[in-house]
């Protein structure tokens, strides 16, 4: 009795589990495709937009207390080195 019960539980766990996993990921496939379509429609030039978005957030980020000066110095030195090569 007890043994068959745990088997039943296991089988139902499998059915329910695989069902949910497939259903969930199928929904995710649908939504992802839909989302990509919408993004492509409303953002005509995705490549350009993505780069411009990066630029637009670039300036405010400079306000963060990250070690910007160092990074800038490194970049400056690298560019300088490149030119002088």
């Amino acid at each position, binding site marked *: 009795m007890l*043994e068959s019960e*745990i088997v039943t539980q296991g089988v139902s*766990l499998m059915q329910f589990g695989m069902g949910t996993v497939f*259903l*969930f990921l199928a929904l995710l*496939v649908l939504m992802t495709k839909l989302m990509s379509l919408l*993004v492509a429609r409303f*953002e005509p030039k*995705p490549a350009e937009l993505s780069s411009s978005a990066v630029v637009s957030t670039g300036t405010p980020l400079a306000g963060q207390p990250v070690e910007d000066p160092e990074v800038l110095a490194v970049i400056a030195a690298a560019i300088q080195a490149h030119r002088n090569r």
Partner: protein
Amino acid sequence: MEQLYLLWQSSGLSQMEPGQAFMILVGMVLLYLAINKNFEPLLLVPIGFGGILANIPGAGLAYSALENAVLAADPEVLKDISYSVQITSWESLKDLLHGIHQSSPGLQAAATAAAVEAGYSNGMLYNFYSVSIATGIAPLVIFMGVGAMTDFGPLLANPKTLFLGAAAQFGIFATVLGAVGLTAMGLMNFSIQDAAAIGIIGGADGPTAIYVASMLSPDLLGAIAVAAYSYMALVPMIQPPIMRLLTTENERKIKMVQLRTVSRVEKIIFPLMLLILVGMLLPDAAPLLGMFCFGNLMKECGVVDRLSDTTQNSLINITTIFLGLSVGSKLVADKFLDTNTLGILALGVVAFAIGTACGVIMAKLMNLMSKNKINPLIGSAGVSAVPMAARVSNRVGLKADPNNFLLMHAMGPNVAGVIGSAVAAGVMISLVG
């Protein structure tokens, strides 16, 4: 001379039990595999070392104050403790401990107070475990870090590879069936919770396995974590034969369409969409997938790079150290040395094999219905084991056609497998938790 005799008496060597010696050896083997064979060293070095610490005789590093008090077996203290929990007789200390763990939280608290007053305290590893795993925080933080290191680009470029990640989770549930089957046959003695926790080894995802095991079956956590990380390290040996068996030479040579570039907006929206979907459909998976999506959003949004960097570096490293040592605390001999552990190790490798097979078969099924052919070798990456399984797909593919690079294509099912096993974890917590 008497002094020396006393010294010997109080030493660990004289108190050592065979099980502890064996488990110290197991810890050494794990360290050897991690250091010399590069078996997931980031986890197996702390786990192996923690396992050795946990089995130092007389130190009690993996036990609570109450367990340490009982195991010390001072008659006076035992009297106080057994009085607190209203147990009047017991056959062995292990029997008494079992009785204590069965009693109500209030009585246990009283017994703990008696143990503390007698001067016993929680072992170091027990404290680490309580803070990092019993609260669920450490696996969640690591999952956040994994999210911050994950690129959903290949998945977004080819969303149907999500189905490969779904199919590979069959390894999880087949293993659950195996565990209940072994129990039904009387070979093992697993509860349905144990079976679910063992199944999650097939998810091939360390933090998910630890999270689920800590909630459903803490006693098996050590064996489950060791199995999960070991088999993840063995993926390059487990998967290729199965992949070759299930595919023809021509299938292995299929060239896939070049992936389109994915815009930054899509990458930002995807984790939020996934979060909402999880929230709406499977709230029990919300902590795991929520933290995963949070980490990924921090990475992709581009405005909190400080936080994303810390998440991927010092935070995940600190958490890994304590998570590993805490998992090691479950390698204590009297919890780990059990025929069940052998069952777990056997079931774990079966889980990986079935997951791999299902991923490959799913890819072949999808090819029957679609004109954009998928190379079935990327199906095996659906088990997760990021990024090892995707590399295996690539390597096997290169053997069939030296110009066919499958790596980026395999990253799609690979991260899909992470989502899939987190979903499976949510289902199991929801149904048997």
